């Protein structure tokens, strides 16, 4: 028996992380072929997931943190230089 829409909705997310295989994959695909609403959900959950990644990736550090980490970079680079001289 094929999975229902609610089960397919959960499998859509599972498939993003770990592709379904074998008979589960086949039933999932067959359901998607027959169900336009689940195809839409499949497409939109993919977009939503990528949107989260792109929002988080755009976060920018505070000036204070940038200064601190840059100072650390300079200090450590100087030490590496001294060690190799």
């Amino acid at each position, binding site marked *: 028996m094929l999975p229902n829409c609610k089960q397919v909705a959960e499998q859509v997310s599972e498939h993003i992380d770990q592709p379904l295989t074998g008979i589960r994959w086949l039933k999932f695909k067959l359901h998607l072929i027959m169900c336009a609403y689940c195809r839409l959900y499949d497409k939109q*959950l993919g977009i*939503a*997931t990528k949107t*989260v990644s792109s929002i*988080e990736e755009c976060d920018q550090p505070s000036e204070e943190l940038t200064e601190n980490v840059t100072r650390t970079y300079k200090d450590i680079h100087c030490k590496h230089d001294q060690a190799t001289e």
Partner: protein
Amino acid sequence: MVKISSLSEKEILKLLLGGDEAVFNQVFKAYYGSMQAVAYAIAGPVIADEVVQEAWLSALKALPKFEGRSSLKSWLIRIVANEAKTRRRKENRSVSLESIQDSWATDPRFTENSHWKNPSAQWHGDTPEDLLSAEELRECIEKNMQKLPENQLAALRLRDAGGLSMDELCNILEVSSSNVRVLLHRARDKVLRVIDHFQITGEC
């Protein structure tokens, strides 16, 4: 100024080891979002930036020994995750394992037979860039992500922002792989509903 997007990882590493501050600043800013998301998910919001800073200290010390077996980003993410786990132990903090708050069983978008009753609408845009051209939507997603149960938000950040593996998520969140799958699905589904609502109404 050299843009890191036009350089290979080998070239970036060489410049970093050569003390190129401008390149370092670009690398730091490019990976900050993912590193902060992982630190936040494991160690909490208050010390997330401190954890990122400590992780960079460890990473920069170890950089001459970096062999490039993984990408620079994955290597940095592993360092920040380890740093955050250490801090979490010290601060005796754990991600709250409140039961998966599940309205999924009674989700009104589905019929009693678990088929779609109220599916989402067609969206005006197929990519994150299309969608996020509306600044209000970005703010709306961020606001609603903050309202997610802590374990769902942590799973979402670790996986979709940090790119950690499912095994690493199980390990960090101390839940089974099937629970991680549920946490991720519920969190992503919430983001989908937020976008859908915005697409239909133009409001958050």
